[in-house]
C-alpha cells in the first residue's frame, strides 16, 4: 500500500521535447543520448533491455516494476530473472508476457 502511494508522488515529466532534445534533433544526434527517456529493447520474448531507468520498485518471478522518468514500466511474465543490473541499464530475462507503462 505504502509503495503505491509512493508511486504517485514520483515526479513525472511530460512527453514533450526539452530544449536539449530540440538541439539534438537539429544537430541530428541520436536523441536517446541526450534525453532521459527510457529505451526499451526486447529480443523475442525472452529478453528485455531497459536503458535510462531510475530504479526497480518490485521484483518477483512474475512481475518486475521499474521506475523511470516517464512512469513505471511493468513487465509481467514467468520465471523472470535480472541477468544484469548496472546504474544505466537492466537486462531482464524470462518468459515475458507484457510490457506496460503505468502513468
Amino acid at each position, binding site marked *: 500500500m505504502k509503495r503505491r502511494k509512493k508511486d504517485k508522488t514520483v515526479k513525472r515529466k511530460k512527453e514533450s521535447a526539452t530544449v536539449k532534445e530540440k538541439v539534438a534533433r537539429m544537430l541530428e544526434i541520436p536523441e536517446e543520448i541526450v534525453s532521459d527517456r527510457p529505451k526499451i529493447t526486447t529480443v523475442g520474448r525472452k529478453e528485455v533491455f531497459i536503458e535510462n531507468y531510475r530504479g526497480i520498485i518490485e*521484483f518477483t518471478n512474475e512481475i518486475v516494476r521499474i521506475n523511470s522518468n516517464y512512469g513505471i514500466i511493468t513487465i509481467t511474465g514467468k520465471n523472470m530473472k535480472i541477468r544484469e*543490473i548496472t546504474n544505466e541499464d537492466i537486462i531482464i530475462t524470462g518468459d515475458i508476457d507484457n510490457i506496460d507503462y503505468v502513468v
Partner: protein
Amino acid sequence: MFLIRLWHYFKGYVIIIVSGFSVEKFINICTRRQILLWDIERLSPTEVTMKMSIRGFKNARSAARKSRCRVRIKEKKGLPYIIWKYKRRKGFVIGLVAFAVLIYLMTSIIWSIEITGNYNINTDVLMEQLNGMGIFRGATKRSIDPKYVADTLMLKNRELAWTGVEIKGTKLLITVREGIEPPVVIPVEQPCNVVAKRDGIIISIMAKNGLTLVKEGDTVKKGQVLISGVLESIHPEFGSKQVHAMGEVLARTWYEAEKEVPVKKINRIKTGLEWNKYSVYFLDFRIRLPLGNNPFELYETGIVDKAPVIGNRFKLPFGLIIEKHYELKEEEQVLDQEQARELAHKMAMDKILEMVPKEAEIVDQQMQVITAEGREYIQVTVECTENIAIQKEIGGN
C-alpha cells in the same frame, strides 16, 4: 557472454542470498554505488539470490544495513579464492616453484655427449678437445656455440671431412665424417718405377711412360718392377735418363682360403629364464642394488637404461640400469656332409671376399675338398683380374 563469465571468474565473485522485505531497495542502493549485480533470482517472497563481485561485496554491507536486509554468502567463486586457498599452504607453493626451477635448470645442462661416425680418430681424443673448449658433462647449453665447436674440431683434426654439432634436449650430438686420406701420389716431376702390388700372371701391360720389363704371360712377384723409370741409352757413355713411369698392368691373381668342415654345430638358445641386476646411477656414480648373484653359467646380457626423459628429448642424468641376463643353453647339431661342406664353403668365401680388393673382378672360383688326418678341409680358390700396377720411387725397397 563467455568472455564476461571468464572475466568474472578471474576477478572472483560471491553468490549471496539477501533476505528482507525491501530487497529491491538493496539492489537500487548497490547499483547506485556502481556495484555490478547479475543473475538476480527470487527464491521466496523474502529471499533473493544474486551474484556480486568481491570488491562490490565489501561495499554492500552498508547497503544491507540501510535497506535492513540480511546478506549471507552462499558460495565464493573465482580465481582469487583459489589463490587465497593455496597462499596459506606455503610449502606447496615453494615446492611448486622449486620444481619448476629445478626442471628448468636440469634441462638447460648438457648431460651426455655422444660422438658418432669416428673410426680412426679416438673418441677420447675428441672428448679431450671438447673439454678444452669448455664442453663437458654439466656444462650449460647456453655456453655452447655449435658452429664454433664444429669449426674448432674441423681445424684440429685434419682427418675430418665434416662435423655436425647438435644439441638435442640435454644431449650433445657430435657427428663426424672422416675423409679418406688421399693415397701417396708421387709428383709428376719425380722419376719412379711401376711395381707389382701382388703376385700374378700378366694379362696385359700398357706403359704410358717408361720401359716395360715384363710381357704378357709372365709371372711376377710382389714388388717386382714392371715398368722401369730408368731408361738406359743404347750408348753406355751417355748414361741413363730417369722418367716418371706410368702405366696399367692387368694381371690374373689368386686368392685362397681354407676352412675345416665342421662335424657339428653348436647352437646357443635362450632358455627363457631371466635374471635382472639393478643399479641406480647419477652421472657416473653407479650403485648396485643388492639382489643376489647371477645364477646362470652361460648367459647373454642386455642393458636397459631407464632414465627419466622429459618429452623424449630431455634426458636427465640419473636413472636405473637394468642388466638383463638371459640364460642360454647349448645344443649340438650334427650336420650331414653336404650341409657341413656348404657351411665351410660359405665361411671360406666370406674370408676371401674380405681379402679381394674392391676393384678386382672375380673371374673364376674353385672348390676343393682336402682330407688330412681324418679331417676334411674345404679349400676355395678365387681367380681375379686386377690392375696390379703401383708407383714406387726408384731406389727404394
